[in-house]
């Protein structure tokens, strides 16, 4: 709900420094819708599209440079995208972009790598086994679990229906 421009100014000028929690909540709520759903979606579309564009460039590079087929080039492309994402995460750049781009950086496979890498770095202080090893899949784990279960169910359905593969 976009607040009235004039009302906004008043709220600030009356109580600029001392706000109770309740007032702050109202104050913050007034400002929250500044990032509209439409704007978020536009940014997600553009950033996500740009990442896929880079992926397409990497894939075409593998096809041109190593004479791979499109199918063969898929795996090295994903690996390169993950490497780029991990490097950007290490430099702290990826999370900065992610804050702004939302799903645009989270949905591509780079976001998957980012979640693993940042969890690994974050929990490094807890040790290699209990920290890095155990916490790496904190966020990525649900993706793998649900992906595998879904793939298993679909595989079983195909088997029962006797379709086999495609």
């Amino acid at each position, binding site marked *: 709900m976009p607040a009235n421009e004039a009302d906004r100014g008043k709220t600030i000028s009356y109580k600029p420094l001392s706000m109770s929690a309740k007032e702050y909540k109202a104050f913050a709520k007034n400002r929250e819708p500044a990032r509209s759903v439409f704007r978020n979606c536009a940014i997600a579309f553009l950033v996500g599209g740009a990442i896929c564009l880079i992926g397409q460039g990497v894939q075409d590079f593998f096809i041109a440079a190593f004479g791979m087929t499109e199918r063969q080039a898929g795996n090295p492309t994903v690996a390169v995208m993950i490497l780029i994402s991990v490097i950007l995460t290490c430099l702290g750049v990826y999370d900065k972009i992610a804050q702004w781009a939302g799903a645009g950086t989270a949905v*591509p496979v780079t976001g998957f790598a980012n979640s693993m890498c940042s969890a690994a770095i974050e929990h490094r202080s807890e040790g290699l086994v209990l920290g890095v090893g155990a916490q*790496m899949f904190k966020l990525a784990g649900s993706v793998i679990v649900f992906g595998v279960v879904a793939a298993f169910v679909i595989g079983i359905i195909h*088997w029962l229906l006797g379709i086999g593969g495609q």
Partner: protein
Amino acid sequence: MQYLWAFIIGGGICLIGQLLFDVVKLTPAHTMSLLVVAGAVVDGIGWYEPLIKFAGAGATVPITSFGNSLVHGALTELQRDGWIGVITGIFEVTSAGISAAIIFSFLAALVVKPKG
């Protein structure tokens, strides 16, 4: 031309993700899981391969392709080895992505100090 479609389809999948964030109010983990399952189901009915042919990296870079690869591995080995292939084949195609993510993340954790 493929670059244009890669941009549009890839961006479109991210847009769906953003709508799930903002409109349906799902957490990122729920959104990602849902997209992976969606990718798996779409491949299960045989529509993901044509999408990859059409949009290239626009279909292979978003996380939905992870679900697609899991199903694809399972179905390929199902065809080749029978029912046991459903279990053995799941990570057949995805292993590159998961291995790369694990290895690079582990190495990164060895050398990089966490930032505030």
